[in-house]
């Protein structure tokens, strides 16, 4: 194998050394239960509180507004279900979301729909930007919650959250944003961004899997999702994962410090996009400029994503695809379909998600490695045969 390039940071990231080093003492020495009265408990409580403080400081909110969870999925479930059930008492039984949300959001909304809520799923344009006019028409006095992601995990498009807040708040609805992909990649300041709730997840920013947080703005009241022993101010039961909470705080601080280095990542991303879209019959998925700094998602026609991934993997490159063949359901990515990307191109979509750890040499290697793979697969594709013979209607 010539080289190893991890280009799947949108799926998950390696835990950084600094994060591990901050976490280790919490596992070995400060192992107390933060609810315990004795010294070990007090010590753990102090560390947990300080982790909360550190996260709040980075995000521009108050520590009392941060709740630790088991990750992005739990935060998403809690925010949506907790708000929906609470608002139902006020006669608000309508939920608005988008067609390109993560399944943690989509399936929670589906479940609430089965339980009697009405759900409107807003469409997006060809770049994956939520249709604000459609949103304005959808939100009404019955709307409990507008749940729209900050940035999309597949195509990287960043959504107009401020405008979304204006629209929702004008009708008295709450706003929740899934910022799992955005946090650490985009400057988020909750002192000026008027969302009511925001979710984040550790493993997308070099902290471990299984830790996340939900921001709930002061004055916003939602129901509990997980009942238990009174932890997190009786809002989320379960003995706190102190070490991972510290890891999350450390990772967030690191990400914040490195925001100024993101233009370098963007430059590498743009080189990937520019070079790979030179391959015939390829097209960028997602917004050209208003996208996550590490996300390049490109659709190659006439080939299938899983085959592309297998070849990349053999060549030492880890990436992902929205192809039907690589999903358990054998359906192509709902995000690409919502954007109007034809099935054929969704099939050949490739997501490369890079990070601060990526080097220019890694980018060179991807740019060198991919075109022959595309060519090889096209040469054995009956669809490509038609193109070569000039019979393809779509080409």
């Amino acid at each position, binding site marked *: 194998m010539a080289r190893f390039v991890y280009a799947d940071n949108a799926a998950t990231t390696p835990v950084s050394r600094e994060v591990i080093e901050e976490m280790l003492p919490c596992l070995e020495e400060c192992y107390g239960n933060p609810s315990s009265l004795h010294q070990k408990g007090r010590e753990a409580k102090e560390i947990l509180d300080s982790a909360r403080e550190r996260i709040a400081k980075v995000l521009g909110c108050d520590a009392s507004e941060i709740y630790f969870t088991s990750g992005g999925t739990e935060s998403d479930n809690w925010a949506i279900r907790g708000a929906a059930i609470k608002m139902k008492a006020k006669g608000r039984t309508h939920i608005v979301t988008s067609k390109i949300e993560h399944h943690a959001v989509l399936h929670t909304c589906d479940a609430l729909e089965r339980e009697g809520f009405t759900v409107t799923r807003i469409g997006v344009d060809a770049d994956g930007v939520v249709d604000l006019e459609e949103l304005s028409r959808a939100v009404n006095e019955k709307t409990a919650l507008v749940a729209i992601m900050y940035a999309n995990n597949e195509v990287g498009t960043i959504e107009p959250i401020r405008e979304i807040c204006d629209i929702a708040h004008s009708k008295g609805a709450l706003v929740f944003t899934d910022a799992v992909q955005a946090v650490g990649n985009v400057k988020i300041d909750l002192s000026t961004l008027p969302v009511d709730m925001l979710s984040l997840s550790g493993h997308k920013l070099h902290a471990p899997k299984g830790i996340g947080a939900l921001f709930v703005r002061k004055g916003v009241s939602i129901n509990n999702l997980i009942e238990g022993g009174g932890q997190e101010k009786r809002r989320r039961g379960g003995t706190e994962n102190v070490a991972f909470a510290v890891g999350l705080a450390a990772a967030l601080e690191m990400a914040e410090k490195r925001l100024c280095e993101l233009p370098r990542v963007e430059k590498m991303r743009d080189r990937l996009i520019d070079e790979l879209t030179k391959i015939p019959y390829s097209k960028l998925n997602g917004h050209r400029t208003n996208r996550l700094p590490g996300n390049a998602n490109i659709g190659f026609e006439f080939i299938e994503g899983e*085959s592309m991934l*297998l070849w990349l993997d*053999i060549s030492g490159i880890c990436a992902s695809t929205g192809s039907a063949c690589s999903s358990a359901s*054998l359906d192509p990515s709902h995000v690409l379909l919502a954007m109007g990307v034809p*099935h*054929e191109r969704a099939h050949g979509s490739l997501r490369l998600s890079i990070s601060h750890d990526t080097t220019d040499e890694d980018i060179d290697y991807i740019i060198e490695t991919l075109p022959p793979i595309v060519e090889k697969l096209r040469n*054995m594709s009956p669809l490509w045969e038609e193109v070569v013979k000039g019979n393809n209607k779509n080409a």
Partner: protein
Amino acid sequence: MKYSEKVMDHFTNPRNVGEIENADGVGVVGNAKCGDIMKMYLKIDENDVITDCKFKTFGCGAAIATSSMATELVKGHTVKEALALTNSAVVEALEGLPPVKVHCSVLAEEAIKTAVADYYNKIGREIDFEIEKAHDEE
């Protein structure tokens, strides 16, 4: 999900990729929408023996590997023997497929049978077999 070594061998090193000019039977199966398209070409001599078989496939690793394996399994055999080829025989020859990928092997069986049907049509022989469909009709 993990593919067997055999699958990876046939995926990275597919046998009999290509087209046959003036093939005696051609079978195209699948659907670009739901995933896969497989195209099989058969060259058949006067004794009903498949002397050459080539394929082109648009699909996942399993689709490519099963096409490759299927061509190997029918080449040099009679049309009758080819018709007896089941997808489970292809899966077995590949040392197994992940459960979600078994439908790709059904496609290979279907492609061979469709190519034979095309041959029967060309030579005016009655089609006395059924073709199992890999995908439900939409």
